[in-house]
């Protein structure tokens, strides 16, 4: 919970990791390149006081995670989004099992999401069922651009993807988080393309599709499809840290989202450990749209409360305390 100027903010961090990016776990140059790429994101967009060494970035201890998120980061509930990348990392980068081990020790703090890949066919459907049972899944994180053998990625509209989405519906996994791009294989089309989200959002009105990174670098396409689909949400992971390094661009992102989809479908995330939530929450609560950006709707305290926690809490049925203003 964060408090500022007499207002209280319940914080759900919708996108965190418990990863192992150490050289000992890097399977090849791709794994090394992947971690270095993340680290450059971290260095480029963090305030100077928040920049870690590469060694610190490789892996975080349980104590550090609890400290960064809950002791000093104002986070009330954090949602683990797995990133398997088993072709790049010996034991995977950040699997449901790794995340789950930590979540089981702190069940009041974490929610664990799973993952699936339609290219796993029938066997993968069975695995999803056991994964859902083992971890009581309410959400999954999908990487449509993930490399798998000779495959160059997949689309949500592939026939096998429909089978998996049907299975999610059947298992009560209602929150489908989608990460678009960057590709790890050459593609003759745009891997960031969000058009497939449009179609499945219509086909599965009972599911909620959270497009991670609000579709960046295709914010315009995300806004266009999300406007037309009430069950599409924008997750702010990676967009948030621009609040420090490029505040006007951040204002444009938030302004465009408010204009096209409104404050009820935007959700906060730090993408920990790429960034830490403390400074993101503090800066977001202080943030105002610049006075010259008159075409955008207002960003009110109530809007910030929704974006920082209430919207994601509604998607995951997280109980929220009453957010009355703090008595003076």
């Amino acid at each position, binding site marked *: 919970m964060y408090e500022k100027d007499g207002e209280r903010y319940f914080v759900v961090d919708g996108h965190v990791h418990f990863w192992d990016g150490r050289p000992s776990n890097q399977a090849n140059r791709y794994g090394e390149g992947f971690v270095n790429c993340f680290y450059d994101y971290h260095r480029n967009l963090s305030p100077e006081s928040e920049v870690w060494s590469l060694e610190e970035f490789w892996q975080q201890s349980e104590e550090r995670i609890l400290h960064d998120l809950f002791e000093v980061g104002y986070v009330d509930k954090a949602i683990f989004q797995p990133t398997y990348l088993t072709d790049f990392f010996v034991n995977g980068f950040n699997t449901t099992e790794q995340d789950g081990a930590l979540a089981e020790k702190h069940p009041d703090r974490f929610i664990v999401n799973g993952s699936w890949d339609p290219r796993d066919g029938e066997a993968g459907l069975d695995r999803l069922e056991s994964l859902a049972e083992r971890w009581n899944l309410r959400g999954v994180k999908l990487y449509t651009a993930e490399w798998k053998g000779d495959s160059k990625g997949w689309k949500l509209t592939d026939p096998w993807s429909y089978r998996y989405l049907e299975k999610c519906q059947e298992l009560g996994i209602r929150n489908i988080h989608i990460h678009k791009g960057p590709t790890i294989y050459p593609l*003759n089309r745009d891997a960031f393309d969000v058009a497939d989200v449009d179609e499945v959002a219509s086909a599965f009105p009972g599911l909620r599709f959270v497009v991670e990174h609000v579709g960046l670098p295709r914010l315009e396409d995300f806004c266009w499809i999300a406007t037309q689909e009430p069950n599409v949400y924008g997750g702010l992971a990676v967009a948030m840290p621009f609040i420090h390094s490029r505040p006007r661009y951040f204002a444009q992102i938030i302004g465009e989202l408010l204009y096209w989809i409104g404050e009820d479908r935007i959700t906060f995330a730090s993408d920990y450990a790429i960034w830490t939530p403390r400074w993101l929450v503090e800066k977001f609560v202080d943030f105002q749209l610049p006075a010259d950006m008159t075409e955008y709707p207002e960003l009110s305290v109530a809007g910030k409360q929704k974006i920082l926690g209430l919207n994601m809490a509604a998607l995951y049925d997280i109980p929220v305390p009453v957010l009355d203003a703090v008595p003076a």
Partner: protein
Amino acid sequence: MNPALWEALGTVVDPELDQPITELGFVSKAVVVTGHAYVRLRLPTYFCAPNFAYLMVADAYDAVRAVPSVTTVDVRLDDHFAADEINAGVAASAGFAGTFGESGDLDELRLTFRRKAYLASVDRLLVFSGAAATIADVPPSPALDAMLRRRAALGLDCSPGAPLLLDEHGGELTPLRLRHARSVRLSIDGNAGFCRGLLRTRYEEVLNRSV
């Protein structure tokens, strides 16, 4: 830097960012020695989309080959996970499909981003000079030239009597699509800013040394 070579490379555009690779800092070396052109390209991350990377390396290769004083060409991308394949494919004129065994080439991808660049240029022009009915009604400006260049690249009507508000397919640009054009511009400009920042972070030491 060789001026003719630099000018040629300045015609090569990052398709996603719609800016010349010379201005983006993607050219780290460009020299001509006794007719041999030696060019090195670099990108903001190890995992920058290889399809766009291929287009830039191939376009740079073609642009350099067309420089009159150049007899042999060596254009290479550095520090990228698919650099070896891209460099070999471009040098052998294998095409993207031939290089990676993909089913199609990159024409459709290029067209998608030409359309985006065009929409963004319309919004940029309107912010600069305000609304008008036809092209002839818009006062001359670099923003108008930029818009017309992008419109011509799509094969759309650039005559003075053509409507200003033309969408990327040649139909009427409706208010909703015009608002979308605003989002496209903000998105492209935002991405370009992020890419420039990442390039600086990645090559900080090199860049500081060269200042």
